[in-house]
């Protein structure tokens, strides 16, 4: 099914349908990830692929055009390149271990160690969370910083022009476009709170069940985006003004790095959460993971909402012939 979806993406020319197909693609891949036991990853993929990236792609389409022009070049050279690369990769898989074999090198080196040690050292049932926040805390700090940087990049690219356009006075449109959709509005009011509640559950229950800061951040952002889509941008920004979002983005990274630096001062290694409770290192780990996940969650929420604001607030350029 994945392959057919991908091939349909190649063949379809309406970019709009492509957005939907890419949503389906990520739903399908998340399904596959569930069957492969990667519950946390499926969680993230579902929230990101079907929620955020659909909205972002739509936002781009709103600002650009909706149809793809046929390419005049011959498709043959890229096809040859692709086939050769594919053949090389398949040749490379010949030496790979069989699917699911417990003797594969990937299973025998580091990970059994993690699986055996994490219940005693960290005491968090979800091994993925434990590794993410504690054993590989440096990595995760780096990833958070990357997300932070990407958010800043997007803002730098498309925020600035908006201010210039504000002077022309054509961005003020009055109340929501969807003011007449009564059912949608009522249901949305009902759902936004529930989604936020669910996000908090995912955030703080991430130690025990699939979930954690990344997922919770995305879900929280989806709640705001839903509100913004059904009501209006102005109304979301009353709840969560852009300046606050920008502060939040930085605050999350600060919380994460601050946890590390605190352990510095108490005399432990950077990001060694035992520092938070030296008498009970395990409790220290719990606190540390909670704090760090909180930082990740805040940053991800902030970045996603900021990107949504940036895309949604941008006035499209009039060109009706491309619709």
């Amino acid at each position, binding site marked *: 099914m994945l392959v057919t979806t991908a091939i349909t993406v190649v063949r379809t020319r309406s970019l709009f349908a492509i957005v939907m197909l890419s949503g389906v693609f990520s739903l399908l891949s998340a399904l596959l990830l569930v069957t492969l036991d990667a519950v946390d990853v499926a969680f993230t993929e579902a929230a990101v692929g079907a929620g955020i990236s659909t909205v972002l792609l739509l936002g781009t389409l*709103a600002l650009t055009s909706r149809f793809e022009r046929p390419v005049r070049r011959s498709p043959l050279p890229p096809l040859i390149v692709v086939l050769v690369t594919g053949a090389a990769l398949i040749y490379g898989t010949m030496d790979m271990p069989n699917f699911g074999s417990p003797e594969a090198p990937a299973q025998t080196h580091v990970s059994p160690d993690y699986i055996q040690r994490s219940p005693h050292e960290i005491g968090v049932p979800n091994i993925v969370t434990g590794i993410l926040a504690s054993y590989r805390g440096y990595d995760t700090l780096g990833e958070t910083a990357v997300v932070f940087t990407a958010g800043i990049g997007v803002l730098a690219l498309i925020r600035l022009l908006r201010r210039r356009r504000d002077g022309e006075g054509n961005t003020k449109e009055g109340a929501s476009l969807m003011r007449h959709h009564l059912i949608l509005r009522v249901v949305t009011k009902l759902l936004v709170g529930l989604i936020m509640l669910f996000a908090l559950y995912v955030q703080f229950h991430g130690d025990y069940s*699939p979930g954690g800061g990344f997922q919770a951040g995305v879900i929280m952002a989806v709640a705001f985006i839903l509100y913004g889509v059904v009501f209006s941008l102005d109304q979301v920004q009353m709840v969560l003004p852009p300046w606050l979002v920008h502060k939040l983005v930085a605050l999350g990274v600060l919380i994460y790095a601050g946890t590390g630096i605190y352990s510095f001062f108490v005399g432990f290694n950077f990001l060694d959460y035992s520092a938070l409770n030296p008498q009970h290192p395990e409790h220290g780990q719990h606190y540390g993971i909670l704090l760090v996940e909180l930082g990740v969650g805040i940053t991800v929420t902030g970045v996603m909402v900021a990107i949504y604001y940036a895309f949604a607030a941008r006035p499209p350029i009039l060109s009706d012939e491309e619709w």
Partner: protein
Amino acid sequence: MFELAAIAIFIAMVFVLIRLYSGPTLYDRVLALNAFGTHTVLFIGILGFLTGRPDFLDIALLYALINFVGTIAILKFFRYRAIGDISSNGTEDETEIEVES
């Protein structure tokens, strides 16, 4: 028995996907997308029981929410060509709103 249900839902998902690929109008595709999401939720639920880890239901819950958001965003975008407030041709849209409300 759970296997049977899983296979049934899987076949159902294939049907919906065919409609999604070939749907003549955009609304057919959106409808199929929505139905596909519902099927996915059910499938993950069944899958959780099949593997004996019913805590997978969190994911099903998430799908139910995200799918809704996606559908609404697509419809709103298609209708107004914007995910924010600003439509590209304000006048036409405003007359539409007057008529509808």
